[in-house]
């Protein structure tokens, strides 16, 4: 049961490092079970055996140097083995092969942005080739963040003003969850993204700017829903719906609600056409140009009661994407 509770529920083993990590983790789990049974089992055994009853005489014992030497020496040796094993796996985790494919990562409140050698930039989706080492060179635009991919067993803080790096070689195709694991304020738990591990053909297509087919969550087959949504993506769909997809993948959703609930940024429910009170005391009507400016130059007009924390999206969205996004915002009544 213990085994199932821990090991059976570890995330997918999507890298070789993950497999080595799991062996060490399993060893520690079993070693802990052993010591837990020894200590707590011993305690419970004594509790029954030496329970107070008439005629029971306690024995006068003040210590035993042999026993003490054993329970100093045995744990010390075990701990040194664990340390060495732990360090050896860590070394593999941190030393990227020199031929690794490099991607630049920028964390900001509250989205992940990725810059590739070919000049592309993506938000919320990190495209990488499978079976090839990938090295991420990471920094932050504002506060601390941390880049965590459970399927790869890797994590590294992302620090403003310096570069940190992490590497992995994905062995499983598909989408792998990325979490931010260093508390970064308001929408910390909304700062999610996906690693999209592509096979050779898909990787070439992606680099050539061709459309990719449907991509499943790593470790799962494509579902009906995946196929349907991919088919829908192929088929022309209403502009506002295209905007909805952008809203969810570009990070907007982390800070803006669409139902009027409170998030770090103003809600977008009914925003279009409404009178907006700004921090400088003036009032403006939210039209297309206001929305566009708020996306591309978010610091230009700050809504009263909110902090100037939104990053700029200038150059990160094409004209067609902007049109779709604005169409979606207009639809939020």
């Amino acid at each position: 049961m213990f085994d199932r509770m821990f090991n059976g529920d570890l995330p997918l083993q999507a890298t070789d490092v993950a497999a080595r990590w799991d062996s060490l983790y399993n060893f520690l789990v079993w070693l802990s079970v052993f010591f837990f049974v020894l200590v707590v089992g011993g305690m419970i055994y004594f509790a029954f055996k030496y329970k107070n009853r008439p005629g029971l005489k306690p024995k006068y014992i003040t210590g035993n140097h042999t026993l003490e030497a054993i329970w100093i020496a045995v744990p010390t040796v075990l701990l040194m083995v664990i340390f060495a094993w732990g360090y050896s796996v860590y070394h593999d985790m941190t030393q990227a092969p020199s031929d690794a494919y490099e991607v630049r990562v920028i964390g900001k409140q509250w989205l992940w942005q990725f810059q590739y050698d070919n000049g592309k930039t993506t938000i919320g989706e990190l495209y990488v080739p499978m079976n090839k080492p990938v090295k991420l060179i990471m920094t932050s635009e504002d506060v601390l963040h941390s880049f965590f991919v459970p399927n790869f067993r890797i994590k590294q803080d992302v620090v403003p003003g310096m570069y940190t790096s992490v590497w992995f070689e994905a062995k499983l195709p598909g989408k792998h969850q990325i979490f931010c694991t260093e508390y970064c304020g308001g929408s910390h738990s909304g700062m999610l993204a996906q690693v999209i591990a592509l096979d050779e053909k898909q990787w070439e297509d992606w680099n050539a700017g061709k459309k990719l087919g449907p991509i499943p969550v790593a470790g799962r087959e494509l579902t009906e829903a995946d196929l349907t949504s991919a088919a829908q993506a192929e088929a022309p769909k209403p502009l506002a719906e295209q905007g909805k997809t952008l809203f969810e993948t570009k990070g907007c959703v982390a800070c803006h609600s669409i139902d009027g609930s409170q998030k770090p940024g103003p809600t977008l429910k009914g925003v279009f056409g409404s009178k907006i009170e700004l921090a400088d005391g003036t009032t403006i009507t939210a039209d297309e140009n206001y929305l566009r400016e708020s996306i591309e130059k978010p610091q230009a007009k700050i809504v009263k009661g909110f902090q100037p924390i939104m990053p700029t999206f200038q150059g990160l969205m094409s004209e067609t994407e902007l049109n779709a996004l604005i169409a979606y915002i207009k639809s939020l009544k």
Partner: protein
Amino acid sequence: MATHAEAHAGLNYLNHTRGLKSWLTTLDHKRIGLMYLYSVLVFFLLGGIFALLIRLELFSPGQTIMSATTYNKVFTYHGAIMVFMVIIPAIPAALGNFLLPILVGAKDVAFPRLNLASYYVFMAGALFAATSLFVNQVDTGWTFYTPYSIRTSTSVILVLTGAFIMGFSSILTGLNFIVTIHKLRAPGLSWSRLPLFCWALYATSIIQVLATPVLAITLLLLIAERVLKIGIFDPAIGGDPILFQHFFWFYSHPAVYIMILPAMGVISEVIPVFSRKPIFGYKAIAYSSFGIALIAFIVWGHHMFVSGQSELANFVFSLLTMFVAVPTGIKVFSWVGTMYRGKLRFQAPMLYAMGFLELFTVGGLTGVFLATLSVNVHLTDTYFVIAHFHYTMVGGAIMGFMAGLHYWFPKIFGRMYSEKAAKWGFGLVITGFNVTFFPQFILGSQGMPRRYWDYLPEFTWLNRLSTFGSWILATGLFFSAYYLIKGAISGKEASANPWEALTLEWQTPSPPPHDNFAETPVVTTWLYEYRDQEPVVSA
């Protein structure tokens, strides 16, 4: 001989003077200890309410009862209150103040006035921190990591000032205890006869005196940076955010031993008394407290394995951290060894001591996971860490506190609580605790990050189980509060030595007279001589 007369008149520390003023201006360590106790329990209630709110919000993914912004404030206050205002002062300042002078056979601590000042300094700090609740609640997490803590618009300065002031209280109490143990021991109470609770408080005091100033300096630097815009930690103005983490953990790592060592001291007192046997390996337990205190100062970097710290630093900190497990293991094995061939009685203090052993063993073993470099990388900043430190801080420190509170209750109040109620309370607390926190190990190994207001749907059922556990735990604690208050007010009167223990506090009436002892006690043997039950104190 005034005390003889007092004893005849039925006078004790509680009733020898009356009125609110006699309490607020008291120099009696017992009354000061009691004031600490009441204050800490009020803060415990407050911190506990925040904990219940956290668990309630996490009952379902997405918004359950509060917005993300509110949630961030709630977990910040839960952490800050529990660490600075509950666990750090709970055993040393409340139980330690009450018991240390009696345990060493003294009339009071070395500096009674300073002791009262420590209490007021503590309350002043607490007041500062609590004021922020009504101004602009802080949302940085109790760790105040930069640069977020410099940039957030919330009232960080108020809370930092509060923690800064409370730090002084901690330093002064530590100083007072060190001098008391050195200078005020009764005749015959040599170092090798000193109760292990005193050894533990001594080791704790050393950490308090040496580590707390670093926290004070760090908090001052942070305030300076926020107010004067001097670039220390914020890279936007030339600072280094990782430097803050080094400073912060240089205090806060030793601080976790400020929290756990006194609890270990309580356990070392309770187990021999209820096993009717000497403590197993007295010297090893006493020295291992110092081993832990020493190592405490050189392992802070294990909180920072993924911070961007160098690989060499990680290597060294992981290696050093492993050695914490050795003295900790010595203690745990010795406690179980004490039970071997004893004559065990399972009253509430012993049950809590055994609960401590169960929970602290889990907390300690999972600490080895986190000390292991590569294993730490996946588990750090996930719910695995949350579970680990709750098993040590609540399972260890709070269970130790409960053991101590039940053990010394008859001495402090001169009355008994209902033993039957206490057994029920213990059952609820230990069940609730395990149901709340064990699922969090699994959530963490699956990758659920900490400080998350929202989570992926696959984490739902374990979160629900944990929330359900928090209700059992809360029921157990509220029930404990009920029977303890009832016992303190109307419980049956306790004898001087209801547990038949040998240490000095049991050789004076319950509750003790104002001066603790009618005459200065003289110690003639080791205080764990549970062999023949002959008196060890002669007048």
